[in-house]
Each structure stands twice: as C-alpha cells, then as structure tokens.
C-alpha cells in the first residue's frame, strides 16, 4: 500500500474513530429499516428466508447513502478539498482510501446487524453459509465504490443529498440484483449462487476500474 493511500486511509479512520458519526448513524438507520420491513412484510417461516437477503441489502443501501454524503461533505469544510486537489498525488489514491474506509464502516454495520437478522427472521442457512462471507463483501464493495464515486460527483450540485441516491441506485441495481439473488439462494438452498457471484465479481471489477480511471476527471472538474 503506497504511503499516500495509507495517509488518506489513516486520516479517515482516525476521524471516524474519534467521532463515530458515520457508524452510529448507519447502524441505527439500518436497524430502523429492518424493523420497518418486518412490520410491512411480516416475515414468518419460509417467507422470512425468501426476503431476508433483500431486506439486508436494502437496509445496507439506505444506511450507506447517509454515510457517503457525509464523507465528502467533511472534505469540503475548511477547504480541505481544495488542498487535496493541489496536492501532487493522484486523486485515485484519495478515492481508493475513501472506498476502503467506507467499506470497513459498512461491513462493521453488517456484522453488527447479523445477529439481529438471525433473531428477527429466524434464519437458517440451507445452502453453503461460507459463501455469504464472499457474497456480502462483493455486494458491499459494489455499493461503496460506486457510492463514493457518485457522492464526489454530486457534491457540487444543489440538492446534493437528494442527488446521490438518484444517480447511485439505478447504476447499482444490477449489483443489488446479484447480491439479493445470491444471498437468497444461499439462505434457501434453492438454486446455485455461483452465476450471481460471478456477475457480482465482474461488476465490481468493471466499475472499480472505471471509477479509478475517471475519478481525477471528476475531482478536478472546474
């Protein structure tokens, strides 16, 4: 890991450690979404197995949008963003560090939420449970990589908090589909998750590469 990447990453982690803003708000928001869905859709028995994957993914999505907006807004205060732009390092490293930090935060939220899910949905994993450790990070990476990129894109518009979900969710939909289908097929053991896992991996690779290549364009747009 290059020292610039590490510097950016350490900075973000340190700020988060001291305030714990993002993780607290994400955790609570995700929990609320889970409860709302449970009340709206009454998960019982086999039905719970069918919808648990979807509810987890949607809860993660809504929760991370709030954290993503905050991540860049923090940079704009005190002209930190301008300082970053003037630094002779490539924007891609700043971007990757933010993605890694946000990925860590969202994963922590998902891990914290897992027992809640097991309890509220009476989950029994019928398929290979170990694959969940592959599917969830792949899906979360897709969300966080695209989300961080579009948050940087939306930061200079009016209505920036509203614009981020509007441009993120359509592009994220294929990955959402993959994540939900893979999770559901692992939980219910009904079908083979590997097609979706391969699709998620392909999606992650394509969009991470494009984001890294185009981040400098967005960052230095004037």
């Amino acid at each position, binding site marked *: 890991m290059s020292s610039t990447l590490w510097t950016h990453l350490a900075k973000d982690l340190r700020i988060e450690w001291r305030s714990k803003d993002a993780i607290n708000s994400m955790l609570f928001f995700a929990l609320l979404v889970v409860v709302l869905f449970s009340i709206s859709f009454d998960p019982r028995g086999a039905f719970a197995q069918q919808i648990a994957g979807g509810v987890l993914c949607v809860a993660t999505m809504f929760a991370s949008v709030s954290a993503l907006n905050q991540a860049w807004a923090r940079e704009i205060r005190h002209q930190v963003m301008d300082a970053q732009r003037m630094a002779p390092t490539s924007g891609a490293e700043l971007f990757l560090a933010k993605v890694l930090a946000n990925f860590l935060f969202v994963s922590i939220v998902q891990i914290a939420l897992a027992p809640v899910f097991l309890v509220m949905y009476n989950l029994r994993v019928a398929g290979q449970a170990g694959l969940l450790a592959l599917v969830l990070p792949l899906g979360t990476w897709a969300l966080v990589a695209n989300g961080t990129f*579009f948050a940087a*894109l*939306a930061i*200079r518009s009016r209505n920036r908090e509203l614009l981020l979900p*509007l*441009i993120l969710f*359509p592009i994220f939909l*294929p990955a959402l589909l993959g994540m939900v289908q893979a999770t559901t097929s692992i939980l219910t053991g009904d079908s083979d998750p590997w097609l979706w896992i391969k699709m998620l991996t392909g999606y992650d690779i394509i*969009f991470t590469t494009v984001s890294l290549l185009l981040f400098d364009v967005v960052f230095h747009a004037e």
Partner: protein
Amino acid sequence: MKKVLLTLFPLVTVLLMVQGYHQAIYVAPDDAMQGYVFRIIYYHVPSASVAFLFFFISLIGSVGFLAFRRSSPNRAQIADAWALAGAEVGVVFCTVVLTTGPLWGRRAWGIWWTWDARLTTTLVLWLIYVSYLLLRRFAAGPQMQTLAAVLGIFGALDVPIVYMSNRWWRTQHPAPVFGGDQDSGMKDPTMVHALLWNMLAWFCWGLLVLFLRYQVERRHQEYAAIEAQEALEASA
C-alpha cells in the same frame, strides 16, 4: 444544397412513416399464435433499436467531451450537445419501449409486467438516463458538463448487459426472434418486410428529432457563451 436536404429529409421521413404504418397494419399478416396483437412488434422493436443507438451516440458524445475539453473547446461543446440530445431522445424512445411492451404483454401473456432479466435491465437503463438528465438539471456551473459526461459513461456500461440479458438468463421475454434457436426467425417474408420498413421509418424519425434537439442545444450553448462574454465585458 443543405437547405434542400433539410427540407427533403423530414418529407421523406413522413412518407416512410406512412409506408411503415401501411405495412404494419394492412400488409403484414396476423401472427399464427398471437393474432393481431403481434403488430406491436413493428413499434416496439424499432423503438428499442433507436433507443439503444441514441444511448450509444450519447456515450460517444460524453467520451468526446472528456477527450476534447482541454484541447479543442468548440469540439467539446459539440460533443456535449450530442451527448445531451442522444440521452434525451433516447429516454423518449425507451419510454415508448416500456409502454408498448406491457401493452403487448397484457394481451399476449396476461400480465402487464414481470421482473425478468430483459424487462428489468431495460427499466434500469431508462432509470440511469433519467438520472443523467436529473444531474444535468441539478448540477450547476461549468463542471456540470464534465460530471454529466462521466455519468454518461457509467450509464452506457449498462447497455451491453441489457443486450446480453436475453441470452444469459432464462427469461419470460420472447426468445430472440433473430439469432435465437433454429426455430426462431420470422417465417413470413411479408412480416420481415414490414419490420424493415418500420425500422427504417422510425430510425429516420428518431434521427430527425435527434438532429433538431442537437440544434436547439447548440443554440443554448451559443447564447450561454454570449451571455458569459457580456457579463465579463460588463464587469471589466
């Protein structure tokens, strides 16, 4: 010469549309299995093709804008105008696809909608380009075009997924009529002719609207440049 072409093309387009309509409704026979309802294919398929083409044009425009914005600003503005025109008119045609499809589906399959691969990905495509248009509206300032161009590139990465979806997943959408299994393909040559006439007619119509939208956008850009120049001179 240019004026002649500009008057002739809309005229030819209208004639082609009339011919296409005649072919679709009166000349082509009923489908063996679907009957009269089948005729919506003459609007659904051309609209889908035009939408995909225009989204591709939008992609080229976005890439062109990013490529030329430092070296050749005028060319970059032209590219950006194509990007916006392509996206807007593409969204219109995609809306047509998403409305004619359910109309057909309700009659042919008994359901308005299903979340199979092709329908879902076409809807996603529509959503992506609507979000592109929203970004253009909400983002302000000179960087708006750059940001929109980047989003356009991201959005366009979805297009191959839409095209391949009918091949990759088991789907309720009718299996590919052309290039599917050996039993596919339109058997009656009059049907093929009707489809080709309609393809041509709708392509011409789409190109006409696209060209008009492009011209409008170029005018907008020129006025904006004039205003900026005046503001600069007023403050000097």
